[in-house]
């Protein structure tokens, strides 16, 4: 198993109130698979993903990613873990506005051991001709492509996408999903994606439904649907 989570718990303390956000998550995902996490707002999706990505830490339970017990790592090791294993794609792209497209990608390639070829990645995400543009000179979809390029340039083992299409329109969303699927196929990257949109679940190998910090349903797609055929 590539991702293996056992009885993961997490609660937040604000003042005297303790909110239990994750109440014993169990989750598995195979290497090279695409997992989708569905769930209403506030159900703990981002919290879960942040723990998997080494941004946050669970209170108890175990989170194993490719043999690494993530929940046990100290801050320095977590940094190394994020740096070497994980690619992030965010809802709002989070590009550095002062840097050009290629420089934004370099933010990551600069610190990775064996990054992929820049032009190849730019080609793959379809923005090769825009490498000298600044983020604000790009559309939302193009910016998200840059953000994906930035995430995959280091050839991560795991790509974490928190609502990657949340800020995009229908057709752009579809092309982004297509791109993610291509990345998955081409580089064999395991992808875990959060979404509100149940239709998107069709493209996943595995779908996890989260409600109030618990996985209430888990389903396996034997034959995932190609992204271009998904409609909503």
């Amino acid at each position, binding site marked *: 198993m590539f991702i293996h989570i056992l009885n993961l718990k997490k609660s937040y303390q604000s003042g005297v109130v303790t909110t239990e956000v994750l109440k014993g998550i169990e989750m598995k995902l195979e290497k090279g698979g695409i997992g989708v996490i569905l769930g209403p707002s506030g159900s703990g999706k*981002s919290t879960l993903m*942040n723990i998997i990505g080494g941004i946050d830490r669970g209170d108890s339970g175990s989170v194993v990613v490719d043999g690494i017990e993530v929940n046990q790592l100290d801050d320095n090791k977590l940094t190394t873990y994020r*740096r070497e294993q994980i690619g992030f794609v965010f809802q*709002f792209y989070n590009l*550095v506005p002062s840097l050009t497209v290629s*420089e934004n990608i370099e933010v990551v390639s600069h*610190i990775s051991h064996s990054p992929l070829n820049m032009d190849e990645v730019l080609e793959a995400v379809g923005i090769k001709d825009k490498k000298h543009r600044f983020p*604000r000179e790009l559309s939302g979809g193009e910016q998200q492509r840059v953000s994906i390029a930035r995430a995959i340039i280091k050839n991560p083992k795991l790509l974490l996408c928190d609502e990657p299409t949340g800020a995009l329109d229908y057709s752009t969303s579809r092309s982004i999903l297509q791109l993610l699927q291509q990345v998955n196929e081409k580089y064999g990257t395991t992808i875990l994606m959060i979404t509100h949109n149940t239709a998107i679940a069709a493209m996943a190998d595995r779908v996890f439904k989260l409600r109030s910090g618990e996985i209430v349903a888990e389903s396996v797609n034997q034959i995932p649907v190609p992204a271009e055929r998904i409609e909503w």
Partner: protein
Amino acid sequence: MILIKKVLRTIWTDKAPYLGSMFLIAFSCMLMVMMNLVSKNLNNTYSAYKSNHVMSDVEVYLDTELDMADMKKRFNVKIEQSGVTDYSSKDGQILRIFSFNTQINTPAVSSGKKLESGEILLDKLYAKKNGYEIGDIVQIAGKKYKYAGDMTLPNYIYVAKSKDEVIRDPKNFGLAVVDKDDFESIPNATPFYAIKFNNSNNLKAQETAMKGYLREKGTKIIKWENTEKNYSVSYVLVKINLMGKLSIVAPSMILLLTCVLTGILMWRLLNRESVIIGTLYAQGYRKKELMRHYLVFPLIVAGMGAMIGTIAGVFMINFLYNFMLTTFPMPKEPIVYDLGILMFSLLLPVVILCVSTIIVVNRMFKIRPSQLMKGNKKNDKANFIERKLRLDKFKFVTKFQIREQVRSLSRTIFLLFGIIVATMFLQYGLTMKSSVDYLLNEGISKLYHLKYEYVFNEYKRGAPPKGTEQFNTMYAIMDDEAETNFYITGLPKNSTRILLNDLKGNKLTPDKVIITTPLAKKMGLTIGDTIRFYNFEDGKKYSITIEEIADTYGGEFIFMPLSELNAMLDLPSDTYIGIFSDVEMTFAKKEIKTTKSMDAIKAGFHSLIDQMGIMIYSLTISAFVIGLVIIYLVTGLVVDEHKGTISLFKVLGYKKKEINKLILNSNIFTVIIGYILGVPLLVGSVDVMYQALAESLPMVIPAKLNIWYILLGFVIVMLTFELAKLMSRKKINRIAMSDALKSGTE
């Protein structure tokens, strides 16, 4: 309004920039108020002293008695005959004794009692240093006097022995006053007349008329001394003027720069509030309400800062004022608090910061609220430089650092401005010190190669004593309004005692007419100019043409060949009036007119500077503190404005060190450039200040900054920057990764 709570919370959560600004403002206000009010009060004190104790306009030494009644009638003046003598006791102490005047230059007696016969008044420091208690007996020329109290003299405020030895040495030199009848019995007294013109307008013309009348009558004027130009009074004036100008120029500049700086800071801080402003605006808050709300920021920061600073300044006045009065003893006047200055100090910061706030908030109102809510970032285009930059060849770190500087040009300029200001503050005191060092080392030491100068009462002829070098002088007075005066010194053509260089650094031998730089500057002369002047001794007119300018700040002189000077004065060519010597020599007392020791002169310079010292050093330290705070504030601002990027980099797996390097070091070039620009700007402005002071200073000071001080300043600025970086590092560590995940702005 509930929003007031929000203001306080914003200030509290982001303490550093707000408190830092407040501190800067408070500090500058304190300096401003303190220096200005002390200078004002000193001025008042001096004026009050001058009029209450009827300071003379001139003191005149004549070869005959003056018909005072006739003069009073003729010239509308007050005249009082007075006398002075130097009484030296066995151990070399000199007590300069004056007769007790009742009309002009009346002593300010601390006890307030009238002086009885057989009593003596002393200057306080002398009495203290020599252990005299009131009631003690002071022996003068075999006669016993009872020490009855302390006094100060309006015509002798700065108690130093002579113009050349301006060091104050109360152990060995002091002033005394005795009753007129008692004074008669003291031997070797020189009588003089203290004169005060009743009409204080056009003094020069009145003096000229009086001089003319006396000459016409055949009275020889031995000395005509303008009281306010006499060193013992003029130093006080210089000091007051200097302080007045310094207190207006330096602290006002500091205050103004501080206000501009904090104004910009306020601007940037409020810019961050754009999302909130947009949201509130969209929800129906009126512009007026929002403006009122955001004006609370500058009102708190500037208002509190100015208030604290002004009050602190008012408390400090007494301390500085008393200190000044020990150096320049004058009867203390009640302190006057100039309302204008207090108001200025209270209002200037508030006004500038409020204006800055109004502009920035108004600018935001011009943007649609929807845009504001998104952070007002998306619409600004890549600027020209950004677009043109192709950085493919550089390493990523360099690329990032350059991009960051170029992206936010306004921030870079702000940082640059901050560093320039900080540099100027830091270097301010060092430049002053450097200038004086230059004056002493390059000026005096390089010019004079001698230890003693002896001037005789009578001309001598022939060869000077072995091991010495002879010279002749003439005291020249320009025939102009300012009555500029200077010595023309005749030197042997192969002089080894006075060494001169021209402006290019080549050696000059005194076989030409050479003017020193300060005198040339003062009179606006260049090579080839001819000046006309008269000889103070006999009033005859002469003229000479300047042939060279010497690059020295050692004094205001014209040097020329001894033989030519003698020819000009109609004297045999081997005549001399004085000698330069390396060893101390003894002459019969009546043979010698003056003795100068170079060491004493240098010590005098130092002491003069030391008196300015407390002011210079306190300004320097203040400037240093201000510089440090500025650099810290600006660096902190850079970190704050990079919050999103820092958070993102953390998520992406950057290590702390790497982030520090990327974010904090990107400013290093700006800091260096700021420093490089700051130094000449400072030297330039100090030069302007010195020039403004040139009239009131006894010497022309070149604005110089020693190369070592430049390096030292650089090290200090860099260390300060490192310190600020260190403090900012904590701030970087505190930034949470979740910041990047939540918002899409930057």
